[in-house]
């Protein structure tokens, strides 16, 4: 085996690949070969670093250099300067958005300082397509330990004691679920990995599957051993082609290595995994809907109980866990419950992966210990709000979650505290909003998503959310009435109270939490017919101030719809019936003559 001195880790996650990271990796390999460094340096395509907005990202080991926004054309310079001459390429180094300081060693990056990576432990570290690299990072030792030295009950006790809770949304105690599935009698049982990640902006499950697929395979096999299942199924959306591809390769490798198949570790335990593809319906992340979809039926939820642990896939006991939950399992087995329990809060142990998005400087995936505050996440790890704008709110838990504000910034992030504050953990989407965001518009956006994703089975979700959405549209058009606020609250609460599944039960959350925290914005839309953030187009008007207008005609030439008229050197005029409110005139005017009214 070659003992490489330098490793160039190139992010091969979907996000970096879409900004040409695979071409970059090719270029780097070619350049290394060109310069005769084949035995000295190696390029490894890894999973996601979680640092997506600045991609493609390269990490150089052993000196922990992080290069951001690297283009394939930069390959030659990196190899020549960094690898050959030992000089870092300054222009590609990460710059702290707050201090403008160039970071030479990744360990000094604020964004990584507060993170603890358990579920993402191998993402951005190993080549996800190599089972050997996974094994080199203690891969499959947990499975080996479980199969050869422990009884299923002992393993379940460990998972229970660790306090691990479902990372897909509701936070059910994972060990308890395993126990329930084990205790349900049945010859045939199933292990299902829920990879139907659907929250807008959330992509931790995809990143884990792309960056560390073997950890899921290992955890599912452990779960199979505990529950008595010999069949594993991964329900994954077909829109994740790279994750599917890597998972397939990983399953194949695991089968070749005897980690899947018959008589694993010569213990007589049989377990294998196959894939089931979803068509991308958000509701299929709900476990009963997921199971119906896997069975070939319509993806819609049914009443629980019976829980899948009792009556699941094909009517057999089925343990359904989400990707991130599974990713924690081998680490807990290897490092022990005490270690895991030492991270997090009293009721929420371990870490949680969040997808930071919106108006924050460091957009991407982060993994933080439970109990960390929103302030730390947004202002330290996230690097604060973009362009030094003012923080306004953060939507946590995706479209089902709630919107928290300034006053919640010191709330510790755990399952209970978030619910108390009016949001939820959900699958870990975190969308940050600043002063330029209209909160009524934000509520409308999230509701638009759930209205679209409702399965249509129950009345409150099928019709109620639609009506809620229509009310919001009406308000943002300036047609809202005073009584609409009360109507929104009553309708929202009834939908929460009567919907069949969590999709419907949580769909009004953004509307209600925004009503609670930003009531003045609703009132401004309804009473004053104004959108304070200037987002709702129907409520704003571009106008020309006669005193400032010099008649340069720039605005008229910029207007794409010919809504502006006026002779040279005379005051111009905007025809409101034609104006599409694109703002091109305002951008072009040098005399501050165009204003928003």
């Amino acid at each position: 085996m070659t003992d490489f001195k330098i490793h160039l880790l190139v992010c091969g996650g979907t996000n970096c690949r879409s900004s040409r990271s695979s071409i970059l990796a090719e270029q780097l390999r070619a350049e290394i070969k060109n310069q005769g460094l084949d035995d000295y340096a190696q390029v490894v395509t890894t999973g996601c670093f979680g640092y997506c907005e600045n991609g493609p990202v390269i990490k150089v080991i052993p000196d922990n250099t992080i290069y951001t926004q690297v283009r394939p054309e930069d390959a030659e310079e990196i190899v020549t300067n960094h690898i050959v001459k030992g000089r870092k390429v300054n222009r590609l180094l990460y710059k702290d958005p707050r201090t403008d300081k160039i970071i030479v060693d990744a360990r000094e990056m604020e964004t990584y300082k507060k993170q603890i990576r358990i579920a993402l432990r191998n993402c951005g570290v190993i080549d996800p397509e190599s089972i050997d690299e996974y094994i080199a990072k203690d891969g499959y030792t947990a499975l080996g330990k479980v199969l050869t030295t422990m009884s299923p009950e002992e393993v379940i006790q460990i998972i229970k004691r660790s306090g691990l809770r479902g990372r897909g949304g509701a936070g059910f105690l994972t060990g308890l679920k395993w126990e329930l599935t084990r205790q349900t009698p049945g010859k045939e049982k199933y292990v299902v990995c829920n990879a139907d990640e659907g929250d807008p902006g959330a992509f931790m499950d995809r990143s884990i599957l792309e960056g560390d697929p073997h950890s899921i395979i290992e955890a599912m096999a452990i779960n199979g051993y505990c529950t008595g299942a010999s069949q594993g199924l991964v329900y994954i959306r077909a829109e994740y082609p790279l994750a599917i591809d890597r998972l397939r390769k990983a399953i194949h490798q695991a089968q070749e290595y005897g980690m899947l198949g018959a008589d694993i570790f010569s213990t007589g335990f049989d377990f294998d995994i196959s894939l089931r593809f979803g068509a991308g319906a958000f509701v299929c992340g709900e476990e009963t809907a997921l199971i119906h979809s896997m069975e070939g039926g319509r993806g819609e939820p049914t009443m629980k109980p019976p829980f899948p642990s009792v009556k699941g896939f094909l009517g057999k006991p089925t343990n359904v866990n989400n990707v991130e939950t599974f990713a924690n399992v081998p680490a807990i087995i290897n490092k022990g419950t005490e270690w895991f329990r030492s991270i997090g809060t009293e009721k929420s142990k371990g870490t949680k992966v969040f997808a930071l998005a919106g108006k924050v400087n460091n957009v991407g995936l982060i993994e933080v210990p439970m109990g960390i505050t929103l302030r730390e996440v947004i202002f330290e790890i996230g690097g604060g709000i973009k362009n030094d704008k003012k923080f306004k709110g953060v939507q946590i838990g995706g479209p089902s979650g709630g919107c928290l504000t300034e006053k919640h910034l010191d709330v510790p992030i755990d399952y209970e505290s978030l619910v108390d504050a009016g949001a939820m953990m959900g699958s870990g989407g975190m969308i940050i909003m600043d002063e330029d965001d209209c909160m009524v518009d934000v509520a409308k956006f999230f509701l638009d998503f759930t209205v679209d994703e409702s399965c249509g089975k129950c009345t409150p979700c099928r019709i109620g959310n639609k009506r809620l959405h229509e009310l919001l549209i009406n308000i943002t058009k300036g047609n809202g009435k005073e009584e609409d606020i009360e109507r929104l609250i009553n309708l929202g609460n009834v939908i929460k109270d009567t919907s069949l599944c969590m999709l419907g039960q949580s769909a009004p959350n953004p509307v209600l939490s925004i009503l609670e925290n930003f009531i003045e914005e609703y009132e401004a839309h309804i009473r004053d017919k104004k959108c304070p953030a200037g987002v709702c187009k129907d409520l704003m008007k571009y106008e020309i101030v006669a005193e400032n207008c010099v008649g340069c005609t720039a605005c008229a030439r910029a207007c794409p719809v010919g809504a502006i008229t006026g002779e040279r050197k005379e005051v111009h005029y905007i025809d409101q019936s034609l104006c599409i409110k694109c703002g091109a005139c305002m951008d072009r005017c040098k005399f501050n003559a165009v204003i928003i009214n």
Partner: protein
Amino acid sequence: MNMEMVKLTIDKKEVEVPEGTTIYKAARKAGIEIPVLCYMDLGDLNIEHKPGGCRICVVEVEGRRNLAPSCSTEVYEGMKVHTHTIRVLNARQTVMELLLSDHPKDCLICPKSGNCDLQELAIKMGVREIHNQDIAEVSTYRTDFSPAIIRDMNKCIMCRRCETMCNELQTVGALSAINRGFMSVVAPAFEMDLEDSVCTYCGQCVAVCPTGALTEVDHTHRLIRDLSNPAKTVIVQTAPAVRAALGEEFGLPPGTLVTGKMVAALRRLGFKYVFDTDFSADLTIMEEGTELLDRLTKHLRGDKSVRLPILTSCCPGWVNFFEAQFTDMLDIPSTARSPQQMFGAIAKTYFADKIRVKRDNLIVVSIMPCLAKKYECTRDEFKVDGNPDVDYSISTRELAHLIKKANIEFNTLPDEDFDLPLGESTGAGVIFGATGGVIEAAIRTAYELYTNKKLPRIDFHELRGMDGIREAVIDFDGLSINIGIAHGLGNARKLLEDIRNGKNHYHAIEIMACPGGCIGGGGQPLHHGNFGILKKRMEAIYREDATKSIRKSHENPYIIKLYEEFLGKPMSERSHKLLHTHYVDKSKKIIYI
């Protein structure tokens, strides 16, 4: 099974019910009626439809975060349920308002008006205002007109009862939910027309639809036009099951036989002749019974070209079913036409000649408990130069509407008799209306024709009943005849699959598409899942049989005369032309996915 009992309180009343009982059923036991909408309990068919979709039946359970759908939430020890707190009432009212906000408000001209579960509930709940209706989008869909059933999905409330009937009970698979969210609706796959789907027109979906989303094609207006046309001679035939159910529409208790009043009403409506499908049921027995004996004797002689069992073919829903789904077995069913069509063929030849009316001027109308009959009339096999043997069929429900419309005081009508010759029938013809009846009628005749002996008994109780699949062995003077009976297409499927897999020992099988046979047909007064009503209708049918002076088809004097004057003998050339048919492989026509 050891049933644990569970104690709980509902509205502070203590109730004790077996483990696994739902709140809804426990409440009923306590005398508390929780309103339901999508829920449907077909206890005798082992179908309890409780998708928990409408959310009207929600109740408050102490300690539970949200409201619980009582139809699908099981009770537990110590549970405390409140069925009418303000929170519950507000939720129900709001949900009802939501349903109405996406429902047409044209109740005045809706065929279901007055018989609509949604309307009834709206009246009960007293919804007086629908907030923001002016900005509310309403989901609309293309109306689907098939020969028997109209789908107006603008009125669908997604209760999904039709889906359960079509898929679980009938295993037809024509209907399922499509689309998502606000636009989700029950429809054939890809929203194609019912006519292009595997639909059999059994009408069981129509029978359970709580609104006007699924209704029958209404021919009463056409009938009124024809009756008012002096150039036309309009005659009518009435199916056996109609007389056992029609009275329900006029407030009479289920199981009241209204044969005489029905005849009187039809006469007052202006039909020139009021005849009985029971007559042609007797004729069916002559043809089908003879065919059975023919196939049986050939089979016993070792003729390998003859396949057994012979299957009855009176039920058009069942014919549609095997033509679409069991196309490899098209040679098994009897070739005998249904009684409706035999009647039409005889009426437009033999009878038309007798009264000297040209075929084109004779309108034959049938009153049927069935919607598939509407389709059956339109089949090309049953037309002569484009003129159908039976012009159109109206259902029991449509007839009731028509009688009401004509302000005929049904309950005070005198009992009148059918006209002759096509109104004379035997008890064997009457029992066609109940599951097992056709095969019993066939045996009464086949036995005597085969053995040349008089039947020792007329009632074959072993063939009667409500079990989905039944079987019996009938002794034909030393020869054991194995009989199978199925009602409901799901049960039929089981028998057919057994035949297909060679697991079959029957000589003859009777199949009816609807549960209970024609008495439970898709055109009958709505029974709302109450099978007690079907049982009462069944009793009425057998009561009528018992009171008939002649109870064997081959003894019907007018049938004997018909053969003497016109047909010759059963299975004669003329019989073949007029009374038999062939089956079509519909799988080629149907659009499969």
